Protein backbone atom coordinates (compact mmCIF):
# COMPACT_ATOMS: atom_id res chain seq x y z
CA UNK A 1 0.00 0.00 0.00
CA UNK A 2 2.98 2.33 0.50
CA UNK A 3 3.42 2.56 -3.28
CA UNK A 4 -0.14 3.83 -3.65
CA UNK A 5 0.33 6.42 -0.92
CA UNK A 6 3.60 7.58 -2.48
CA UNK A 7 1.96 7.93 -5.90
CA UNK A 8 -1.03 9.69 -4.35
CA UNK A 9 1.35 12.14 -2.65
CA UNK A 10 3.10 12.81 -5.96
CA UNK A 11 -0.27 13.33 -7.62
CA UNK A 12 -1.56 15.83 -5.05
CA UNK A 13 1.67 17.82 -4.97
CA UNK A 14 1.69 17.93 -8.78
CA UNK A 15 -1.84 19.35 -8.80
CA UNK A 16 -0.78 22.24 -6.61
CA UNK A 17 2.43 22.78 -8.55
CA UNK A 18 0.56 22.79 -11.86
CA UNK A 19 -1.85 25.48 -10.72
CA UNK A 20 0.77 27.53 -8.91
CA UNK A 21 3.30 27.81 -11.75
CA UNK A 22 0.84 29.28 -14.24
CA UNK A 23 -1.27 31.37 -11.87
CA UNK A 24 0.18 34.69 -13.07
CA UNK A 25 -0.03 34.18 -16.84
CA UNK A 26 -1.17 37.16 -18.94
CA UNK A 27 -3.97 36.62 -21.42
CA UNK A 28 -1.53 37.36 -24.25
CA UNK A 29 0.21 34.09 -23.51
CA UNK A 30 -2.84 31.86 -23.11
CA UNK A 31 -2.48 30.35 -26.57
CA UNK A 32 1.26 29.53 -26.37
CA UNK A 33 0.84 28.23 -22.82
CA UNK A 34 -1.97 25.93 -23.84
CA UNK A 35 0.09 24.75 -26.78
CA UNK A 36 3.17 24.17 -24.61
CA UNK A 37 1.19 22.23 -21.99
CA UNK A 38 -0.30 20.26 -24.87
CA UNK A 39 3.19 19.30 -26.01
CA UNK A 40 4.17 18.21 -22.50
CA UNK A 41 1.44 15.59 -22.30
CA UNK A 42 2.91 14.18 -25.51
CA UNK A 43 5.33 12.50 -23.12
CA UNK A 44 2.76 9.69 -23.14
CA UNK A 45 5.20 8.59 -25.85
CA UNK A 46 7.20 7.08 -22.96
CA UNK A 47 4.20 4.92 -22.08
CA UNK A 48 3.59 4.03 -25.72
CA UNK A 49 7.21 2.91 -26.13
CA UNK A 50 7.05 0.76 -22.97
CA UNK A 51 3.84 -1.09 -23.90
CA UNK A 52 4.91 -1.51 -27.53
CA UNK A 53 8.30 -2.81 -26.36
CA UNK A 54 6.52 -5.61 -24.51
CA UNK A 55 3.88 -6.33 -27.15
CA UNK A 56 3.81 -10.04 -28.00
CA UNK A 57 1.06 -10.36 -30.61
CA UNK A 58 0.95 -8.73 -34.05
CA UNK A 59 -2.28 -6.99 -33.10
CA UNK A 60 -0.70 -5.58 -29.96
CA UNK A 61 2.31 -4.41 -31.93
CA UNK A 62 0.14 -2.60 -34.48
CA UNK A 63 -1.93 -0.85 -31.81
CA UNK A 64 1.24 0.05 -29.92
CA UNK A 65 2.94 1.47 -33.00
CA UNK A 66 -0.17 3.54 -33.74
CA UNK A 67 0.09 4.92 -30.20
CA UNK A 68 3.78 5.69 -30.73
CA UNK A 69 3.08 7.60 -33.96
CA UNK A 70 0.21 9.59 -32.38
CA UNK A 71 2.18 10.41 -29.24
CA UNK A 72 5.21 11.52 -31.27
CA UNK A 73 3.04 13.83 -33.39
CA UNK A 74 1.64 15.32 -30.18
CA UNK A 75 5.03 15.81 -28.56
CA UNK A 76 7.24 16.91 -31.46
CA UNK A 77 4.59 18.92 -33.30
CA UNK A 78 3.48 20.54 -30.06
CA UNK A 79 6.90 21.85 -29.12
CA UNK A 80 7.71 23.01 -32.67
CA UNK A 81 4.45 24.90 -33.12
CA UNK A 82 4.77 26.54 -29.70
CA UNK A 83 8.27 27.68 -30.60
CA UNK A 84 6.96 29.14 -33.86
CA UNK A 85 4.34 31.13 -31.99
CA UNK A 86 6.81 32.43 -29.43
CA UNK A 87 9.37 33.32 -32.09
CA UNK A 88 7.01 36.11 -33.15
CA UNK A 89 6.77 37.49 -29.66
CA UNK A 90 10.56 37.46 -29.53
CA UNK A 91 10.94 39.51 -32.70
CA UNK A 92 9.35 42.67 -31.44
CA UNK A 93 11.12 42.52 -28.09
CA UNK A 94 14.58 42.23 -29.65
CA UNK A 95 15.55 45.92 -29.28
CA UNK A 96 14.91 45.82 -25.53
CA UNK A 97 17.17 42.84 -24.97
CA UNK A 98 20.67 43.02 -23.56
CA UNK A 99 23.26 42.85 -26.36
CA UNK A 100 24.82 39.51 -25.38
CA UNK A 101 21.38 37.92 -25.24
CA UNK A 102 20.62 38.97 -28.81
CA UNK A 103 23.99 37.66 -29.89
CA UNK A 104 23.23 34.29 -28.37
CA UNK A 105 19.92 34.23 -30.16
CA UNK A 106 21.62 35.02 -33.44
CA UNK A 107 24.01 32.14 -32.91
CA UNK A 108 21.14 29.77 -32.21
Amino acid at each position, binding site marked *: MTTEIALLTVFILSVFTGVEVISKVSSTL*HTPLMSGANAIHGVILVGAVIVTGFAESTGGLIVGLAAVVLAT*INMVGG*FVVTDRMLQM*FGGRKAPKKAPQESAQEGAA
Partner: protein
Amino acid sequence: MIPVWAQLGYLAAAICFIVALKGLSSPKTARGGNLIGAAGAVLACVITFFAYDVGNLGWILAAIAIGTVIGVVGAQRVQMTQMPQLVALFNGVGGGAAALVALLELNEIVAHGEDGGSALVALIATAFTILVGSVSFSGSMVTFAKLQELMTTRPVTFPGLPVLFGGSLLAGVVLSIVLVAGPGLAVGTVLCLVGLALGVLLVLPVGGADVPIVISLLNAFTGLAVAAGGYVLGNTLLLVAGTLVGASGTFLTKLMADAMGRSLFNTLFGALKGGSTLGGGEISDRPVKSAGAEDIAILLGYAHRVIVVPGYGLAVAQAQHTLRDLVDVLGDRGIKVDYAIHPVAGRMPGHMNVLLAEAQVPYEQLREMDQINGDFKQTDVVLVVGANDVVNPAAKTTPGAPIYGMPILNADESRQIVFMKRSMRPGFAGIENELLFDPKTTLMFGDARDSLTKLLSAVKAL
Protein backbone atom coordinates in the same frame (compact mmCIF):
# COMPACT_ATOMS: atom_id res chain seq x y z
CA MET B 1 11.60 -2.10 -11.34
CA ILE B 2 13.56 0.44 -13.31
CA PRO B 3 17.12 1.41 -12.28
CA VAL B 4 17.78 4.29 -9.89
CA TRP B 5 19.67 6.37 -12.45
CA ALA B 6 16.63 6.20 -14.74
CA GLN B 7 14.34 7.31 -11.94
CA LEU B 8 16.64 10.24 -11.25
CA GLY B 9 16.62 11.05 -14.96
CA TYR B 10 12.82 11.00 -14.93
CA LEU B 11 12.90 13.35 -11.96
CA ALA B 12 15.11 15.73 -13.95
CA ALA B 13 12.61 15.57 -16.84
CA ALA B 14 9.75 16.32 -14.45
CA ILE B 15 11.64 19.37 -13.17
CA CYS B 16 12.12 20.48 -16.79
CA PHE B 17 8.35 20.36 -17.29
CA ILE B 18 7.67 22.45 -14.19
CA VAL B 19 10.28 25.01 -15.25
CA ALA B 20 8.78 24.98 -18.77
CA LEU B 21 5.27 25.78 -17.55
CA LYS B 22 6.62 28.49 -15.28
CA GLY B 23 8.62 29.96 -18.17
CA LEU B 24 5.65 29.86 -20.52
CA SER B 25 3.61 32.13 -18.28
CA SER B 26 5.84 35.17 -18.80
CA PRO B 27 6.67 36.75 -22.19
CA LYS B 28 10.40 37.09 -21.49
CA THR B 29 10.99 33.49 -20.57
CA ALA B 30 8.36 31.81 -22.72
CA ARG B 31 10.53 30.65 -25.58
CA GLY B 32 13.27 29.36 -23.30
CA GLY B 33 10.66 27.60 -21.19
CA ASN B 34 9.29 25.79 -24.20
CA LEU B 35 12.77 24.62 -25.20
CA ILE B 36 13.43 23.35 -21.66
CA GLY B 37 10.17 21.40 -21.86
CA ALA B 38 11.25 19.88 -25.18
CA ALA B 39 14.63 18.96 -23.69
CA GLY B 40 12.86 17.25 -20.78
CA ALA B 41 10.66 15.26 -23.15
CA VAL B 42 13.61 14.10 -25.25
CA LEU B 43 15.55 13.15 -22.09
CA ALA B 44 12.58 11.12 -20.85
CA CYS B 45 12.30 9.20 -24.12
CA VAL B 46 16.02 8.41 -24.32
CA ILE B 47 16.04 7.18 -20.72
CA THR B 48 13.07 4.92 -21.45
CA PHE B 49 14.92 3.07 -24.21
CA PHE B 50 17.84 2.29 -21.90
CA ALA B 51 15.95 1.69 -18.65
CA TYR B 52 13.37 -0.75 -19.98
CA ASP B 53 14.30 -3.79 -22.00
CA VAL B 54 12.40 -2.49 -25.02
CA GLY B 55 11.67 -5.04 -27.74
CA ASN B 56 10.43 -4.35 -31.29
CA LEU B 57 13.05 -1.60 -31.35
CA GLY B 58 13.26 -1.17 -35.13
CA TRP B 59 9.51 -0.83 -35.44
CA ILE B 60 9.31 1.68 -32.59
CA LEU B 61 12.09 3.86 -33.98
CA ALA B 62 10.44 3.83 -37.40
CA ALA B 63 7.13 4.86 -35.83
CA ILE B 64 8.84 7.70 -33.95
CA ALA B 65 10.47 8.84 -37.21
CA ILE B 66 7.10 8.88 -38.97
CA GLY B 67 5.47 10.78 -36.09
CA THR B 68 8.32 13.30 -36.00
CA VAL B 69 8.06 14.02 -39.73
CA ILE B 70 4.28 14.48 -39.52
CA GLY B 71 4.56 16.65 -36.41
CA VAL B 72 7.35 18.89 -37.70
CA VAL B 73 5.88 19.32 -41.19
CA GLY B 74 2.43 20.04 -39.74
CA ALA B 75 3.81 22.56 -37.27
CA GLN B 76 6.00 24.31 -39.84
CA ARG B 77 3.47 24.46 -42.64
CA VAL B 78 0.46 25.65 -40.68
CA GLN B 79 -0.68 29.23 -41.22
CA MET B 80 -0.70 31.32 -38.07
CA THR B 81 -4.44 31.76 -38.58
CA GLN B 82 -4.94 28.00 -38.36
CA MET B 83 -2.93 27.60 -35.16
CA PRO B 84 -5.89 26.82 -32.87
CA GLN B 85 -7.10 23.87 -34.90
CA LEU B 86 -3.58 22.44 -35.06
CA VAL B 87 -3.32 22.60 -31.26
CA ALA B 88 -6.69 20.84 -31.08
CA LEU B 89 -5.45 18.16 -33.46
CA PHE B 90 -2.20 17.59 -31.54
CA ASN B 91 -4.16 17.38 -28.32
CA GLY B 92 -6.55 14.85 -29.82
CA VAL B 93 -3.84 12.48 -31.03
CA GLY B 94 -2.23 12.66 -27.58
CA GLY B 95 -5.51 11.60 -25.99
CA GLY B 96 -5.86 8.82 -28.55
CA ALA B 97 -2.35 7.60 -27.76
CA ALA B 98 -3.16 7.51 -24.03
CA ALA B 99 -6.31 5.46 -24.67
CA LEU B 100 -4.40 2.98 -26.86
CA VAL B 101 -1.65 2.62 -24.25
CA ALA B 102 -4.26 1.86 -21.60
CA LEU B 103 -5.95 -0.73 -23.87
CA LEU B 104 -2.63 -2.51 -24.39
CA GLU B 105 -1.88 -2.44 -20.68
CA LEU B 106 -5.34 -3.86 -20.04
CA ASN B 107 -4.49 -6.69 -22.43
CA GLU B 108 -1.31 -7.25 -20.43
CA ILE B 109 -3.22 -7.33 -17.12
CA VAL B 110 -5.74 -9.81 -18.56
CA ALA B 111 -2.94 -12.06 -19.81
CA HIS B 112 -0.46 -11.93 -16.93
CA GLY B 113 -2.17 -10.24 -14.00
CA GLU B 114 -1.09 -6.93 -12.56
CA ASP B 115 2.50 -6.91 -11.38
CA GLY B 116 3.12 -4.81 -8.31
CA GLY B 117 0.72 -2.38 -6.73
CA SER B 118 -2.96 -2.90 -6.19
CA ALA B 119 -4.85 -4.44 -9.09
CA LEU B 120 -8.01 -2.59 -8.09
CA VAL B 121 -6.56 0.90 -8.29
CA ALA B 122 -4.64 0.02 -11.45
CA LEU B 123 -7.85 -1.15 -13.13
CA ILE B 124 -9.73 1.98 -12.10
CA ALA B 125 -6.91 4.08 -13.56
CA THR B 126 -6.97 1.96 -16.74
CA ALA B 127 -10.69 2.47 -17.21
CA PHE B 128 -10.26 6.21 -16.58
CA THR B 129 -7.49 6.52 -19.15
CA ILE B 130 -9.42 4.62 -21.82
CA LEU B 131 -12.58 6.67 -21.28
CA VAL B 132 -11.05 10.13 -20.89
CA GLY B 133 -8.43 9.59 -23.61
CA SER B 134 -11.16 8.65 -26.10
CA VAL B 135 -13.31 11.62 -25.09
CA SER B 136 -10.34 13.90 -25.65
CA PHE B 137 -9.58 12.33 -29.03
CA SER B 138 -13.06 12.56 -30.55
CA GLY B 139 -13.86 15.88 -28.86
CA SER B 140 -10.70 17.42 -30.28
CA MET B 141 -11.54 16.11 -33.75
CA VAL B 142 -14.93 17.85 -33.60
CA THR B 143 -13.34 21.11 -32.42
CA PHE B 144 -10.87 20.77 -35.29
CA ALA B 145 -13.75 20.36 -37.76
CA LYS B 146 -15.50 23.40 -36.28
CA LEU B 147 -12.43 25.65 -36.40
CA GLN B 148 -11.48 24.49 -39.88
CA GLU B 149 -15.11 25.20 -40.81
CA LEU B 150 -15.53 21.67 -42.14
CA MET B 151 -18.83 21.78 -40.28
CA THR B 152 -21.08 24.50 -38.95
CA THR B 153 -19.60 26.69 -36.24
CA ARG B 154 -23.00 27.16 -34.68
CA PRO B 155 -24.03 24.99 -31.72
CA VAL B 156 -25.45 21.68 -32.95
CA THR B 157 -28.31 20.42 -30.85
CA PHE B 158 -31.15 18.01 -31.40
CA PRO B 159 -34.05 17.10 -29.12
CA GLY B 160 -32.61 13.87 -27.71
CA LEU B 161 -29.11 15.23 -27.14
CA PRO B 162 -29.22 15.73 -23.35
CA VAL B 163 -30.73 12.26 -22.89
CA LEU B 164 -28.19 10.69 -25.24
CA PHE B 165 -25.34 12.48 -23.50
CA GLY B 166 -26.55 11.47 -20.04
CA GLY B 167 -27.08 7.90 -21.25
CA SER B 168 -23.56 7.69 -22.70
CA LEU B 169 -22.09 9.11 -19.52
CA LEU B 170 -23.95 6.52 -17.47
CA ALA B 171 -22.86 3.78 -19.87
CA GLY B 172 -19.26 4.95 -19.47
CA VAL B 173 -19.45 4.75 -15.68
CA VAL B 174 -21.19 1.35 -15.70
CA LEU B 175 -18.72 -0.10 -18.22
CA SER B 176 -15.83 1.20 -16.12
CA ILE B 177 -17.21 -0.64 -13.10
CA VAL B 178 -17.70 -3.80 -15.19
CA LEU B 179 -14.11 -3.48 -16.39
CA VAL B 180 -12.76 -3.18 -12.85
CA ALA B 181 -14.88 -6.13 -11.65
CA GLY B 182 -13.89 -8.41 -14.52
CA PRO B 183 -11.14 -7.10 -16.77
CA GLY B 184 -11.54 -8.01 -20.44
CA LEU B 185 -10.41 -6.55 -23.71
CA ALA B 186 -13.95 -6.58 -25.15
CA VAL B 187 -15.28 -4.40 -22.32
CA GLY B 188 -12.29 -2.09 -22.75
CA THR B 189 -12.97 -1.71 -26.45
CA VAL B 190 -16.65 -0.92 -25.89
CA LEU B 191 -15.63 1.60 -23.22
CA CYS B 192 -13.34 3.20 -25.78
CA LEU B 193 -16.23 3.48 -28.27
CA VAL B 194 -18.51 5.00 -25.62
CA GLY B 195 -15.76 7.53 -24.86
CA LEU B 196 -15.55 8.46 -28.54
CA ALA B 197 -19.31 9.03 -28.66
CA LEU B 198 -19.19 11.09 -25.46
CA GLY B 199 -16.49 13.35 -26.85
CA VAL B 200 -18.55 14.12 -29.95
CA LEU B 201 -21.72 14.74 -27.93
CA LEU B 202 -19.82 16.99 -25.51
CA VAL B 203 -18.46 19.32 -28.19
CA LEU B 204 -21.34 19.41 -30.72
CA PRO B 205 -23.51 21.86 -28.71
CA VAL B 206 -20.62 24.28 -28.13
CA GLY B 207 -20.77 27.46 -30.20
CA GLY B 208 -17.82 28.48 -32.37
CA ALA B 209 -16.75 31.39 -30.19
CA ASP B 210 -16.44 29.12 -27.16
CA VAL B 211 -14.39 26.45 -28.88
CA PRO B 212 -11.03 27.71 -27.48
CA ILE B 213 -12.26 27.09 -23.94
CA VAL B 214 -13.19 23.55 -24.93
CA ILE B 215 -9.77 22.94 -26.49
CA SER B 216 -8.20 24.02 -23.22
CA LEU B 217 -10.52 21.73 -21.27
CA LEU B 218 -9.79 18.75 -23.52
CA ASN B 219 -6.10 19.54 -23.12
CA ALA B 220 -6.55 19.17 -19.36
CA PHE B 221 -8.48 15.92 -19.96
CA THR B 222 -5.61 14.46 -21.97
CA GLY B 223 -3.24 15.49 -19.18
CA LEU B 224 -5.32 13.59 -16.63
CA ALA B 225 -5.57 10.57 -18.94
CA VAL B 226 -1.77 10.57 -19.26
CA ALA B 227 -1.43 10.83 -15.47
CA ALA B 228 -3.73 7.85 -14.94
CA GLY B 229 -1.83 5.96 -17.64
CA GLY B 230 1.36 6.72 -15.71
CA TYR B 231 -0.19 5.17 -12.61
CA VAL B 232 -1.11 2.02 -14.53
CA LEU B 233 2.43 1.66 -15.83
CA GLY B 234 3.93 2.58 -12.47
CA ASN B 235 5.77 5.39 -14.24
CA THR B 236 6.17 8.44 -12.00
CA LEU B 237 7.20 10.77 -14.81
CA LEU B 238 3.96 10.24 -16.73
CA LEU B 239 2.04 10.71 -13.49
CA VAL B 240 3.77 14.02 -12.75
CA ALA B 241 3.70 15.38 -16.32
CA GLY B 242 0.07 14.40 -16.86
CA THR B 243 -1.04 15.84 -13.54
CA LEU B 244 0.84 19.10 -14.16
CA VAL B 245 -0.92 19.53 -17.50
CA GLY B 246 -4.24 18.41 -16.06
CA ALA B 247 -4.09 20.90 -13.20
CA SER B 248 -2.65 23.84 -15.10
CA GLY B 249 -4.97 23.11 -18.04
CA THR B 250 -8.03 23.16 -15.80
CA PHE B 251 -6.91 26.42 -14.24
CA LEU B 252 -6.13 27.92 -17.66
CA THR B 253 -9.58 26.89 -18.85
CA LYS B 254 -11.07 28.85 -15.97
CA LEU B 255 -8.86 31.88 -16.71
CA MET B 256 -9.98 31.83 -20.34
CA ALA B 257 -13.63 31.46 -19.44
CA ASP B 258 -13.26 34.41 -17.06
CA ALA B 259 -11.61 36.52 -19.77
CA MET B 260 -14.61 35.85 -21.99
CA GLY B 261 -17.08 36.43 -19.17
CA ARG B 262 -18.45 32.91 -19.47
CA SER B 263 -18.91 30.19 -16.92
CA LEU B 264 -17.55 26.83 -17.94
CA PHE B 265 -20.92 25.22 -17.36
CA ASN B 266 -22.64 27.71 -19.68
CA THR B 267 -19.99 27.16 -22.33
CA LEU B 268 -20.57 23.43 -22.36
CA PHE B 269 -24.26 23.16 -21.71
CA GLY B 270 -25.66 26.63 -22.48
CA ALA B 271 -26.89 25.59 -25.92
CA LEU B 272 -28.80 22.66 -24.47
CA LYS B 273 -31.03 25.11 -22.65
CA GLY B 274 -32.05 26.48 -26.01
CA GLY B 275 -30.67 30.00 -25.59
CA SER B 276 -28.12 29.93 -28.34
CA THR B 277 -30.51 29.50 -31.23
CA LEU B 278 -31.13 33.24 -31.08
CA GLY B 279 -30.48 35.14 -34.28
CA GLY B 280 -30.79 32.12 -36.50
CA GLY B 281 -27.62 33.04 -38.39
CA GLU B 282 -29.63 34.33 -41.31
CA ILE B 283 -28.47 37.20 -43.47
CA SER B 284 -30.64 40.22 -42.82
CA ASP B 285 -31.84 42.39 -45.69
CA ARG B 286 -32.24 45.49 -43.54
CA PRO B 287 -30.63 48.57 -45.09
CA VAL B 288 -27.04 49.47 -44.19
CA LYS B 289 -24.91 52.44 -45.15
CA SER B 290 -21.93 51.56 -47.29
CA ALA B 291 -19.26 53.75 -48.86
CA GLY B 292 -16.18 53.58 -51.07
CA ALA B 293 -12.52 54.02 -50.20
CA GLU B 294 -12.45 57.78 -50.92
CA ASP B 295 -15.25 58.62 -48.47
CA ILE B 296 -13.72 56.51 -45.73
CA ALA B 297 -10.27 57.97 -46.42
CA ILE B 298 -11.71 61.43 -45.68
CA LEU B 299 -13.28 60.16 -42.46
CA LEU B 300 -9.97 58.71 -41.31
CA GLY B 301 -7.63 61.35 -42.73
CA TYR B 302 -9.26 64.24 -40.86
CA ALA B 303 -9.82 62.46 -37.56
CA HIS B 304 -7.78 63.17 -34.44
CA ARG B 305 -8.07 59.83 -32.76
CA VAL B 306 -8.58 56.47 -34.47
CA ILE B 307 -8.81 53.01 -32.93
CA VAL B 308 -8.38 49.91 -35.08
CA VAL B 309 -10.20 46.75 -34.03
CA PRO B 310 -8.56 43.84 -35.85
CA GLY B 311 -10.29 40.47 -36.12
CA TYR B 312 -9.90 37.08 -37.61
CA GLY B 313 -11.02 38.31 -41.05
CA LEU B 314 -7.92 40.52 -41.18
CA ALA B 315 -5.69 37.52 -40.65
CA VAL B 316 -7.55 35.35 -43.15
CA ALA B 317 -7.03 38.00 -45.83
CA GLN B 318 -3.33 38.23 -44.81
CA ALA B 319 -3.85 41.99 -44.56
CA GLN B 320 -1.87 42.67 -41.36
CA HIS B 321 0.98 44.29 -43.30
CA THR B 322 -1.30 46.55 -45.35
CA LEU B 323 -3.09 47.57 -42.17
CA ARG B 324 0.22 48.45 -40.54
CA ASP B 325 1.11 50.60 -43.59
CA LEU B 326 -2.22 52.40 -43.32
CA VAL B 327 -1.74 53.04 -39.61
CA ASP B 328 1.78 54.37 -40.31
CA VAL B 329 0.46 56.80 -42.94
CA LEU B 330 -2.26 57.99 -40.55
CA GLY B 331 0.37 58.39 -37.85
CA ASP B 332 2.42 60.56 -40.22
CA ARG B 333 -0.60 62.84 -40.57
CA GLY B 334 -0.46 63.38 -36.79
CA ILE B 335 -3.39 61.12 -35.97
CA LYS B 336 -3.17 59.03 -32.84
CA VAL B 337 -3.90 55.43 -33.77
CA ASP B 338 -4.02 52.37 -31.51
CA TYR B 339 -5.03 48.77 -31.98
CA ALA B 340 -7.65 47.51 -29.54
CA ILE B 341 -7.03 43.84 -28.90
CA HIS B 342 -9.93 41.88 -27.51
CA PRO B 343 -8.77 38.97 -25.30
CA VAL B 344 -10.27 36.48 -27.73
CA ALA B 345 -9.64 38.39 -30.98
CA GLY B 346 -8.86 35.83 -33.62
CA ARG B 347 -9.80 32.35 -32.57
CA MET B 348 -8.09 31.99 -29.20
CA PRO B 349 -6.95 34.19 -26.34
CA GLY B 350 -3.73 35.86 -27.42
CA HIS B 351 -4.10 34.70 -31.03
CA MET B 352 -4.32 38.25 -32.44
CA ASN B 353 -1.17 39.30 -30.59
CA VAL B 354 0.65 36.47 -32.35
CA LEU B 355 -0.74 37.52 -35.75
CA LEU B 356 0.10 41.22 -35.37
CA ALA B 357 3.52 40.44 -33.95
CA GLU B 358 4.09 38.51 -37.17
CA ALA B 359 3.38 41.75 -39.10
CA GLN B 360 5.81 43.61 -36.81
CA VAL B 361 3.25 45.99 -35.42
CA PRO B 362 4.97 47.88 -32.56
CA TYR B 363 4.06 46.42 -29.19
CA GLU B 364 3.21 49.87 -27.77
CA GLN B 365 0.33 50.29 -30.23
CA LEU B 366 -1.36 47.08 -29.09
CA ARG B 367 -3.74 47.96 -26.29
CA GLU B 368 -5.66 45.43 -24.27
CA MET B 369 -9.38 45.78 -23.81
CA ASP B 370 -9.29 47.04 -20.23
CA GLN B 371 -6.73 49.71 -21.08
CA ILE B 372 -8.57 51.11 -24.07
CA ASN B 373 -12.26 50.67 -23.39
CA GLY B 374 -12.50 54.09 -21.73
CA ASP B 375 -10.97 55.78 -24.80
CA PHE B 376 -13.75 54.97 -27.28
CA LYS B 377 -15.91 57.90 -26.11
CA GLN B 378 -13.20 60.36 -27.23
CA THR B 379 -12.53 58.51 -30.48
CA ASP B 380 -13.49 59.95 -33.85
CA VAL B 381 -13.37 56.79 -35.93
CA VAL B 382 -13.21 53.12 -35.02
CA LEU B 383 -12.01 51.00 -37.91
CA VAL B 384 -13.22 47.42 -37.48
CA VAL B 385 -11.32 45.12 -39.83
CA GLY B 386 -12.62 41.59 -40.09
CA ALA B 387 -13.97 41.55 -36.55
CA ASN B 388 -17.58 41.26 -35.55
CA ASP B 389 -18.54 39.47 -32.34
CA VAL B 390 -16.02 41.37 -30.20
CA VAL B 391 -17.85 44.67 -30.87
CA ASN B 392 -21.36 43.25 -30.90
CA PRO B 393 -23.48 45.16 -28.36
CA ALA B 394 -25.73 42.11 -28.05
CA ALA B 395 -23.19 40.91 -25.49
CA LYS B 396 -24.45 43.69 -23.23
CA THR B 397 -28.04 44.13 -24.31
CA THR B 398 -29.49 40.77 -25.35
CA PRO B 399 -29.78 38.14 -22.60
CA GLY B 400 -29.84 34.72 -24.21
CA ALA B 401 -27.51 35.61 -27.07
CA PRO B 402 -24.64 33.11 -27.27
CA ILE B 403 -22.14 35.87 -26.46
CA TYR B 404 -24.25 37.53 -23.74
CA GLY B 405 -22.03 38.48 -20.83
CA MET B 406 -18.81 38.44 -22.83
CA PRO B 407 -16.90 41.68 -22.26
CA ILE B 408 -16.72 43.60 -25.57
CA LEU B 409 -14.83 46.55 -26.99
CA ASN B 410 -17.04 49.62 -26.64
CA ALA B 411 -16.79 50.58 -30.31
CA ASP B 412 -20.42 51.68 -30.21
CA GLU B 413 -19.45 54.65 -27.99
CA SER B 414 -17.24 56.31 -30.61
CA ARG B 415 -18.42 59.02 -33.02
CA GLN B 416 -18.07 57.03 -36.23
CA ILE B 417 -17.65 53.33 -36.91
CA VAL B 418 -16.27 51.87 -40.11
CA PHE B 419 -16.68 48.15 -40.71
CA MET B 420 -14.62 46.36 -43.31
CA LYS B 421 -16.48 43.17 -44.14
CA ARG B 422 -16.60 40.63 -46.90
CA SER B 423 -20.35 40.26 -46.66
CA MET B 424 -23.23 40.63 -44.25
CA ARG B 425 -22.49 37.13 -42.97
CA PRO B 426 -22.64 37.02 -39.16
CA GLY B 427 -19.52 36.47 -37.04
CA PHE B 428 -18.17 33.25 -35.61
CA ALA B 429 -20.82 33.19 -32.90
CA GLY B 430 -23.43 33.13 -35.67
CA ILE B 431 -25.51 36.11 -34.53
CA GLU B 432 -26.40 39.38 -36.14
CA ASN B 433 -24.63 42.57 -35.07
CA GLU B 434 -26.95 45.53 -34.38
CA LEU B 435 -23.99 47.88 -34.67
CA LEU B 436 -23.94 47.31 -38.45
CA PHE B 437 -27.31 49.03 -38.72
CA ASP B 438 -26.40 51.94 -36.44
CA PRO B 439 -26.73 55.36 -38.17
CA LYS B 440 -23.11 56.25 -37.33
CA THR B 441 -21.80 53.07 -38.94
CA THR B 442 -20.38 52.92 -42.46
CA LEU B 443 -19.58 49.65 -44.19
CA MET B 444 -16.95 48.94 -46.78
CA PHE B 445 -17.52 45.61 -48.46
CA GLY B 446 -14.77 43.46 -49.90
CA ASP B 447 -11.73 41.41 -49.07
CA ALA B 448 -9.85 43.09 -46.20
CA ARG B 449 -6.59 43.31 -48.13
CA ASP B 450 -8.18 44.81 -51.27
CA SER B 451 -10.15 47.30 -49.21
CA LEU B 452 -7.15 48.33 -47.14
CA THR B 453 -4.98 48.74 -50.24
CA LYS B 454 -7.59 51.01 -51.82
CA LEU B 455 -8.00 52.91 -48.58
CA LEU B 456 -4.24 53.30 -48.23
CA SER B 457 -3.86 54.94 -51.64
CA ALA B 458 -6.93 57.10 -51.03
CA VAL B 459 -5.49 58.38 -47.74
CA LYS B 460 -2.13 59.04 -49.40
CA ALA B 461 -3.93 61.08 -52.10
CA LEU B 462 -5.63 63.36 -49.57
